[in-house]
């Protein structure tokens, strides 16, 4: 972004051009009694040194995953981020507030997005991926809207209930104002449900509680009923789990934060969105395509923009025309530097660690099993003690414990946890008598 200074002289010129006396005259539409009639109550200016110290003091109030050993997941995961990601993404060609799309000046950015799309397709088994979305929840919401509008004969959406609760809320918000009927149910209920008026079924894979269901059975049931199948998957888990393409997914969406994007309160995170070719034209956001220029050389351009967004706006399924290019670049670099084998190794280490902690916790005798289904790197157990007291105790000993959920204590274990950390975590969790 360019810095555009406005001098007093500029202001005067602009005001006289507008025939306005002063800036305040532009705000006359705002009722008198709600206008602020004093200056903002801001502290006095600080020097750079003072400001840095001030900000560091505020930042130091946060506990973070450098100082604490993190066993919390629930949608955002503490994976190792190779340092090359920060180096490359902070290059000025990429590090901009706005993603430049003009092919004449943006071949580097467009190439990176194209690579990202290719990797997402390989990971999900889908035919096409868009250039990314804001986060996993909005990607899921968009998929539900498209599924609902795909057929004029059916429009209802079913969501398998052990979905991330915030994703459920986002989907509900998306559907509510479009008048689309939405029902949450368990897998068992789904497999006995009449889906004749259901346009789409969405399920999280693995579930919010870590469970991995028999997706082939669910997929078969959904597809045979003529509904579309939306899978909201952790991309890290897709390194090892069966590709959603294999059990009939029409849309695969989710949160790609695990792919090299730092934990942050409020993001920015990365929604990925992929689908089979049939729904390509309805995809929200941007898509980069590969073509040739007038000289026959490879070139990348935005392509297949949903015409509805620009021309038949009232028919548009989505109003999102943007993406999360810098975070998509992080994910692209992450997948490139870990590579096909390395990426699987990271995922495998997550599985091994999580199962080690799971067995360890059960062996303390202080925790009960909550599920018999297989899991990836996240699971619930039911502690005999109060969960928030247990988390407080662990926090005092340098651990960020699991989330307190209706199904139990939700623990995530990534490849970052050392054997020492895991042993100490199990020991501390086991010794607590709350």
């Amino acid at each position: 972004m360019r810095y555009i200074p406005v001098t007093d002289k500029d202001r005067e010129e602009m005001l006289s051009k507008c025939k306005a006396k002063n800036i305040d005259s532009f705000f006359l539409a705002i009722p008198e009694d709600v206008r602020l009639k004093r200056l903002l109550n801001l502290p006095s200016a600080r020097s750079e040194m003072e400001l840095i110290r001030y900000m560091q003091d505020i930042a130091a109030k946060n506990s973070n995953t450098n100082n604490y050993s993190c066993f919390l997941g629930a949608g955002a995961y503490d994976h190792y981020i190779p340092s090359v990601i920060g180096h490359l993404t902070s290059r000025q060609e990429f590090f901009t507030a706005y993603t430049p799309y003009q092919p004449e000046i943006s071949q580097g950015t467009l190439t990176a997005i194209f690579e990202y799309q290719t990797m997402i397709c390989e990971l999900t088994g889908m035919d096409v991926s868009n250039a990314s979305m804001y986060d996993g929840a909005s990607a899921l919401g968009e998929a539900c809207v498209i599924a609902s509008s795909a057929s004029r004969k059916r429009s209802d959406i079913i969501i398998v209930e052990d979905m991330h609760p915030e994703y459920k809320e986002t989907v509900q918000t998306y559907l509510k104002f479009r008048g689309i009927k939405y029902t949450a149910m368990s897998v068992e209920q789904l497999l006995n449900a009449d889906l004749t008026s259901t346009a789409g079924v969405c399920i999280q894979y693995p579930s919010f509680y870590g469970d991995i269901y028999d997706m082939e059975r669910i997929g078969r049931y959904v597809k045979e009923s003529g509904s579309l199948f939306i899978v909201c998957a952790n991309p890290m888990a897709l390194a090892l789990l069966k590709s959603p393409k294999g059990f009939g997914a029409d849309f695969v969406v989710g949160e790609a934060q695990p792919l090299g994007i730092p934990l942050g309160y409020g993001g920015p995170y990365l929604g990925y969105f992929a689908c089979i070719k049939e729904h390509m034209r309805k995809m929200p956001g941007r898509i980069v395509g590969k073509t040739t220029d007038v000289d026959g050389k490879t070139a990348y351009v935005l392509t297949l923009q949903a015409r509805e967004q620009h021309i038949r706006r009232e028919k548009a399924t989505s109003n999102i025309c943007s993406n999360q290019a810098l975070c998509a670049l992080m994910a692209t670099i992450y997948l490139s530097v870990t590579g096909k084998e390395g990426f699987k190794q990271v995922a495998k280490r997550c599985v091994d660690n999580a199962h080690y902690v799971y067995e360890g916790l059960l062996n303390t005798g202080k925790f009960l099993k909550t599920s018999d289904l297989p899991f990836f790197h996240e699971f619930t157990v039911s502690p005999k003690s109060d969960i928030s007291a247990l988390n407080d105790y662990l926090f005092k000993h340098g651990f960020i414990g699991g989330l307190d959920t209706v199904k139990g204590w939700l623990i995530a274990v990534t490849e970052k946890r050392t054997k020492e950390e895991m042993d100490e975590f199990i020991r501390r969790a086991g010794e607590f008598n709350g």
Partner: protein
Amino acid sequence: MKFTKDHEWIKKEGKYAYVGITDYAQQQLGDIVYVDLAEEDLVLQQGDVLCAVESVKTAAEVFMPVSGRVIEANHELEESPEKLNENPYEAFLAKITIDDESELDDLMTEDEYNEFLESEAE
């Protein structure tokens, strides 16, 4: 063959009818790049949106000339939408049933349609 003011044609053949867009429509749209095909087995009223056609210039909706049921969409257009430009009266968009044949009487004959085009041009 009968014509609508929205530049669709309909041709009755036996118990079915074929619906497409006119030569004038394809000229106005320019190069057609995609057809959002009609949904088969859908029951529509006269004037309801049947499907949509996208060209390099714009996107346009195609309306049902008469009330009826969509029997079949022309899937050939998925891969070759340019057939609508090349041969608009052969490349149909949908095969339909006609609920009430008297609705055909509301539509224009070829001569009437040509007159309509001329009057529109003025």
